Each structure stands twice: as C-alpha cells, then as structure tokens.
C-alpha cells in the first residue's frame, strides 16, 4: 500500500499537467493510467495507424512552464500552412492568415480574411487570460485567491478597455453569437468562409449558425491560431512531458485502471485499482469526465442536483477519425511544399451548416466537413489522418461495420471532389468512430472536449453549475480533464488550472 498527497487519474495531457503543477509545488503525486502509455486521446493509435490528434493548436506555454520545459527545445515545428480545398480545384493556401492561390496570387477575399483572422486572434489572446486560471468563485472576496481573481478580472477589464471602445463593443457583441454571420458579414461564402466555419465547429455537436460558434472559433485562436505538428509527432511531445514529469519525482503508473474512488466520511482517502491495489491519498484528481467519476464513487457521494447536472451534461461526439494509407509519400494533386499542410474540405459556410443538419437526427453527413493532414510513416507511405465531421456517436442503427464502410466511402468521395486523384492513391482506410474513441479513452461520447463546448457549458458552468472550480462532491475529489474549464484541445490548461485550484485550498 502506498500513500501520496494526490492521485491523478488519467495520463492525458491534462492529467500530466495537473500532476506536474502539483509536483512542482512539492506535492507527492501518483498518476494512474489505464492504457499502456501516457497521452490519452492525443496519442491514441489503433492497429499501427497514426495518433488520433496529430496537430497542435493550443498547447499552452503556461502548462509547459509547469513542466519546466522551454518551448524552444520542444521541437514544435513551424506553423503549418492550411489549404482550403475547393471542389473546382481553385484551392486556397493560408499562411499566417494570408490567403493566396496555389500559384501564390493573393486571394480576392484575402484582406478581409486576414482582418477577421487578426480580430479573432486578438479576441483569443483576451480570452486566454480567462483560460489560464480557474474560473472565479473560489474563496471570499477578501481571501488571497479571491483577491487574485479580482486582480485577474481587472486586468482583463483593462485589456478590454485598451482595445478601444469600438473594438471592445464589437467583442462583447460577437462573443456569444454565431460564426456563420460573423464570417459572412466580412466575406462572400466560399472555401475561406467554409474553413473558418469548419474551425468554429470542429469537435463540437453544433453548426456554424448556432449561437456560441464564435466562441468556439475564438477558442481555436487562443494561442495565435497557428497549427503545428510536433517533431516526432504527438507521441514524442507526450514523451517529453512524461520525462519532465518523472524528473519531479512524480510516480506514473500505466496499465493501471482505477476501479473505484474510496471515500470515508464524505472525503476521499484513495483509490482502488482494478487489480485490487489500494493507493492512499487525500485528494484525487480525475481527467475523466464527471459521469465516469460518478461511476467510480457511486451516485450516493453526490447531491441529487449535482447528479442531475452530470446526467444532463451534453457529451455527444460528432467527429470520426478516418486514416487513409497513401501509396506514395505525398498527397496527389497538391504541390510538394503543401504535403504536410492542414487540408480542409469545407467549400462554404453553408456547406458546413448543411453537413451539421443530418447529424442532429443521428445520421451521417453525406457531404461531411473534413480536416486532414499527412502523418509520415517509416516506410514512406504516409497516413492521411482525417477528421470527418459530422459522424455522431449516437448514429441511428449504431456504428456497425456497414456504418464504418459507409463512412469510408463518404470520406473518399468527399475528398475526391477536391482531389480527384486521391482515391487511386489510397491503399487502406481505418475508421475510428466516436464510440470507439469513447471506449478506448473513457471520454464520454468520444467528444474531443469530453463535453460540448457550448455557452451553457463553459467557464464557471463547465462541466456543471457548482463544479466549475474543479472540486465536486466529497472533499478531496476534483476534476482535471477537458470536461472542465477551459476545455480540451491538447492545451493542458484544464489540468493545470485544476491543480492550481487544488493548491489554493491546500491544508
């Protein structure tokens, strides 16, 4: 039997970040991971395919600091260009918010796109202030955490003011509105608008016309809006984090699923692993969503209202992973320098909304939104790793083989509209539906953010009213995963914030 100051369940990026933050504060921490290796959803691989999440949008420098890692040494690579695929072949290349044709001429809507992109990046930086700390509400106004929160909020207010009145007003106007209108107010509908609309809804069960999609679009832009592919891929990044964490003396045990969280007199005393081992600690932080935690404690540990909120948390995943094994080292139809680019098939904002519509009723999008990127493989035959949206977790009739086959075909057909030579260069397709993601990682609904990033499920309301400060139910029990503020996306802030909140109340 072993004893720690805290146990962290799950070694995804948030679990690792939580552990690192605690360990850096001198606490003894044990991380328990059910899978054979850390990394969680980011590094999930099936049948020798590529990792589930090959791209980095939002890795937080604040989190890296907790690991004591200098971002410069991490090999995060250069920002990747994006290609807005056009069914007519007039693909648009985006580099740092600047739009050109394949041959390099500035796109007609380039300036408008750049303006909007810049605006969103500014907004993103603003919201990042909120993302980098637990939501307010801890302690009284006069306590130390209370004052720190007040200071943080005043700084945010100051930043807002500094934008100038018109920009501040514009920000407060669009923040809660829908991406579709925001985008189309600035540019005509087309692949550029489609790309932004697709980025706005990526991973969520929402369409660009739904209010709240501007928020999720800004979320993507929280760290500058650049996309990178870490050298050696996501597993390499996770390995670095893992190593850094080990240096702090933190214990990481993989292949150790937790069977239950042990409670005594309404407080946490430790966990019991599926192997029957008891590990003691007065605090348990779970990267799993609240519903899974409730499964580990029993519903009786929670108030009825809390259980009700947990039950109603919306966690419907809508993205399936389709990995296409290519026969040649590059994507046919694109120049060499774009072979590593982020490819987005979303020819218009209307297209994205239309793709969303059937998913509401549990059907596959016949014309889905696809984001794809090439992931090198040792034998020179790379994987084109594609996120296909919308492919709802609660598909009518379930995710049987026929449904997976159907998705394979839809994916190929859709990509072929912009890249007609692609199907001939594909030798194998893996389909990982949201249900499989859920089963492998424990993320409810296979949702990228473990819980829908909707306006009523963000900030202090994430994952539910009364749970926004990471503590839930019995004393010593905390959430630290993507289902908490600010959310997922290989960012690590949820874990780091959770640990910060735990440290605030440390006795």
């Amino acid at each position, binding site marked *: 039997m072993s004893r720690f100051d805290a146990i962290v369940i799950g070694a995804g990026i948030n679990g690792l970040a939580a552990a690192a933050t605690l360990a850096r504060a001198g606490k003894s921490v044990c991380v328990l991971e059910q899978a054979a290796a850390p990394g969680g959803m980011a590094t999930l691989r099936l049948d020798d395919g590529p990792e589930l999440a090959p791209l980095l949008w939002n890795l937080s420098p604040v989190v890296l600091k907790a690991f004591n890692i200098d971002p410069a040494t991490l090999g995060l690579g250069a920002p990747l260009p994006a290609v807005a695929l056009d069914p007519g072949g007039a693909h648009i290349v985006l580099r740092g918010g600047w739009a050109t044709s394949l041959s390099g001429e500035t796109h007609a809507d380039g300036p408008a796109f750049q303006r909007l992109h810049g605006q969103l990046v500014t907004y993103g930086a603003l919201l990042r202030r909120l993302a980098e700390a637990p939501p307010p509400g801890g302690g009284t106004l006069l306590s130390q955490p209370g004052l720190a929160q007040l200071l943080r909020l005043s700084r945010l207010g100051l930043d807002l003011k500094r934008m100038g009145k018109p920009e501040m007003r514009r920000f407060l106007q669009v923040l809660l509105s829908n991406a579709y209108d925001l985008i189309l107010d600035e540019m005509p509908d087309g692949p550029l608008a489609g790309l932004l609309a697709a980025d706005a809804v990526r991973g969520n069960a929402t369409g660009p016309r739904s209010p709240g999609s501007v928020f999720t679009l800004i979320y993507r832009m929280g760290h500058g809006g650049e996309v990178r592919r870490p050298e050696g891929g996501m597993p390499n990044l996770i390995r670095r984090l893992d190593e850094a964490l080990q240096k702090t003396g933190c214990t990481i045990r993989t292949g150790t699923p937790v069977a239950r969280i042990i*409670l005594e007199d*309404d407080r946490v005393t430790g966990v019991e692993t599926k192997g029957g081992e008891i590990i003691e600690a007065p605090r348990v932080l779970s990267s799993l969503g609240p519903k899974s935690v409730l499964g580990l404690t029993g*519903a*009786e540990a929670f*108030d*009825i209202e809390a*259980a009700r909120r947990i039950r109603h948390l919306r966690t419907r995943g809508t993205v399936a992973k389709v990995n296409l094994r290519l026969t040649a080292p590059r994507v046919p139809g694109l120049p060499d320098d774009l072979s590593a680019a982020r490819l987005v098939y979303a020819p218009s904002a209307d297209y994205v909304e239309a793709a969303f519509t059937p998913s509401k009723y549990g059907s596959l999008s016949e014309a889905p939104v696809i984001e794809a990127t090439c992931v090198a493989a040792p034998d020179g035959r790379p994987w084109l790793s594609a996120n296909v949206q919308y492919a709802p977790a609660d598909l009518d009739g379930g995710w049987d083989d026929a449904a997976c086959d159907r998705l394979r075909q839809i994916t190929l057909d859709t990509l072929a509209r912009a890249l007609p030579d692609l199907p001939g260069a594909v030798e194998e397709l893996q389909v990982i539906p949201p249900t499989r993601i859920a089963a492998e990682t424990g993320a409810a609904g296979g949702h990228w953010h473990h819980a829908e990033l909707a306006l009523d499920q963000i900030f202090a309301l994430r994952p539910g009213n009364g749970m926004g400060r990471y503590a839930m139910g019995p004393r010593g029990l905390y959430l630290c995963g993507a289902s908490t503020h600010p959310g997922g996306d290989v960012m690590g802030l949820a874990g780091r914030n959770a640990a910060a909140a735990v440290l605030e109340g440390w006795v």
Partner: protein
Amino acid sequence: MSIFADPKLGLVPGPVHDRLAEQSRAMAWYDWAGYIAPSVLDSVEFEYFALRNQASLFDISPMHKYRVTGPGAVAMLNRMVTRDIRKIAVGRVGYTLWCDEAGHVIDDGTLFRLGEDDWRLCCQEPMLSWLDDAAWGFDATITDESHTVAGFSLQGPTSFAILEAAGLALADLKPFAFATPEDGLLVSRTGFTGDLGYELWCDWDAALPLWDRIWKAGAHRGLRAIGYEAVDIARLEAGFLTAGVDFQPVHATERLHRGRTPFELGFGRMVDLGKGHFNGRRALLAARAAPRSRLLRLDIEGFKPARGALIYDRFNRELGHVTSGVWSPTAKRNIALAHVKMPQAEAHPARLWAEIYTHEEGRWTTRMARATPMKAPAFAPARARATPPARF
C-alpha cells in the same frame, strides 16, 4: 358554439366521495391535490371533539404515495432523506424530511418499510420527478401509487375499539408500526393528530367497502367523518407542521432563500449527519451553526387565534410571523407556530409579542399579545402511546 363548463376542469372525486357527499351538510369542500376534500362536513366543533373524545374518520387518499423497490432502494432513499433509514425495521414507519442541495426542506413525510428493499413514501407534495432524479445511478424502481392506493385516518380514543369491532385485532401494534391483518389491507399506527389512531391503506377500488366496514364498526363508538379543519386544530395541538403553510417547500419557492433547513424548522434531531452523505448534508453542516430563523411553538395570551400575526421583540422590532394559529379546545390555550429571526429571537425568548389582526363587526383591529415559546406540544396524551391501547 356555446360555452359549457369543461368537464375536465376542476376537482375530481376521491375514492369515498359518495359517502362524504352523503355526510356533508356544510357543503364546504377544498382542493387537496386535485381531489374534492371536505373542509367541514357538518361543524368543526363537533368534528374536532369527535376526534379527541370518540373517533374520527378522515380520507387521506389524496396524499402522494410512492413505492420504492429494488436492491438499491435503501441506498437511494438514504442518500435522499436526512435520517438514517437503515434504522427503520421492516414493519415500521419513520417520519423524515428531505432537502435540496442547499439543505432546504423539499418536503416531509412518512416512510413505510414494507420489506427489506420495499418502501412506501407518503407525502404532501408531488415527488415523482424528484424521486426519479434521486434514483438515477441506483438500482431502484419508483412507482407512483398516489392514485392507486387509498388511505383513511381513523383517529381518537375509541379508534382501537372500532378496529377491533371491525374484526381487526391489532392490540400489539406499537406506534409507528404497521401490520397487514388481511390481504390488501395495511394498518399503520400513525396519524397527524397526536392522539391514538391508525391509518388504513388499501387499493383505491377497495376503499369504499373498507370505509363502510369501519363506519359500521364505529356506529356505537361515536365515529364521525370529519373534514380538514378539525384535523388542522388537532395537528397544531400536536405540534405537527403542514407543508406550504408552516414552511414553504423549496421547490415551490420563487425566492430560493425562503427555503428552510430542518434545523430552522426545529427538526435537527431528524438530521443524521453521521450516516454518510445525503442530499444537502454539506450545506447543512455549514448551516447548522447559524440558523437564520427558527420555527417556534408559541403559547399566546388571550383567545384570538394568531394566524398571520407578526411577531415582535420587546423593543418592537419585527422578528417574524405566525404561520398557523388556533385556540386549542383541549389544552385551553391559544397556540401558534411562528418563524422568528435568529439569533435575535434567542436573546429574550420570553419577551415576544404577537400582533394579532382581528375582524369584528366589520372592523379590522390589531392587538398585542404576549407570546411564550412552548417546549412541548400543547397536547400529547399518554393514550396515544399505550400498547395495547385502551378501548376508550
């Protein structure tokens, strides 16, 4: 198109409405959970004295009744209510309250342990969706028996004798116990009057014959059908609370702070903080030390009922209000229940004043009456607890 009354509107008859209608001379009915219920059948005075002197029969079928069954029933109910229900043995009935997450009382009621994993909850407020929420995550099934199980309250000194005359020998039945003397009939020694009494439970369809049978048995023992006004006097004498009158069930409040904790209602002893987690426990732990108010039983000078009166301290500062007030014909006291502010009311509890509003001959006046907190209920006769009970 002409306008006729919509037959679907309004109140519906309960299981023994025909009998009550035959009895009713006062034609005074009220709405009890949508059923036509008697306020008074002929006169409050005689109905009350029948209850305290002979026996009374009151239809309590409109109560909400829920069955909770399954291997998870105990855990589920224990998480929901404030007392430790594991201590209620099979065949026993327990009074309990349940709270929301803020520790405010949702409702109170009685829990019948019909079997190891078989419970019946009787309460005033509709509770199906709450029970449904409470059962999530537990292996327990909730069944609404509100409209399938009927109940009568047979109360008063001759109630035991009447049961005996009706062929129901229950001499050994202790207070808060129940028995099933016949198939389809459950008799519990419970009530809302503080007197010797029983509650009889049966299928809705079996209610009428059962009523007639009791009625016949009571013919020579002064049995009288009564309405709620008589019960209301008796329950105040016994110090019982009525939801919606003496406390506002928190689910029926628009202003959430008007909810009350069990401590504030004087039910601290019904809260078992040591039994493990239950709904609202965390909030109650924090709220226990500093109740915002307290429900007091008051003995008020004079004889004018104090319902609606405001309570003042000796410096004329407003401290609270009376929720129920009545002249107790048995205790010969003017009794009331009142919410008073804490801790102010504790400073000089003996010096409280009630401002009573009276309407006499077309004129409203107020009068100040001294109000003294009572430790015990105004009326708690030993006959209520004697086992075996006396025959009169």
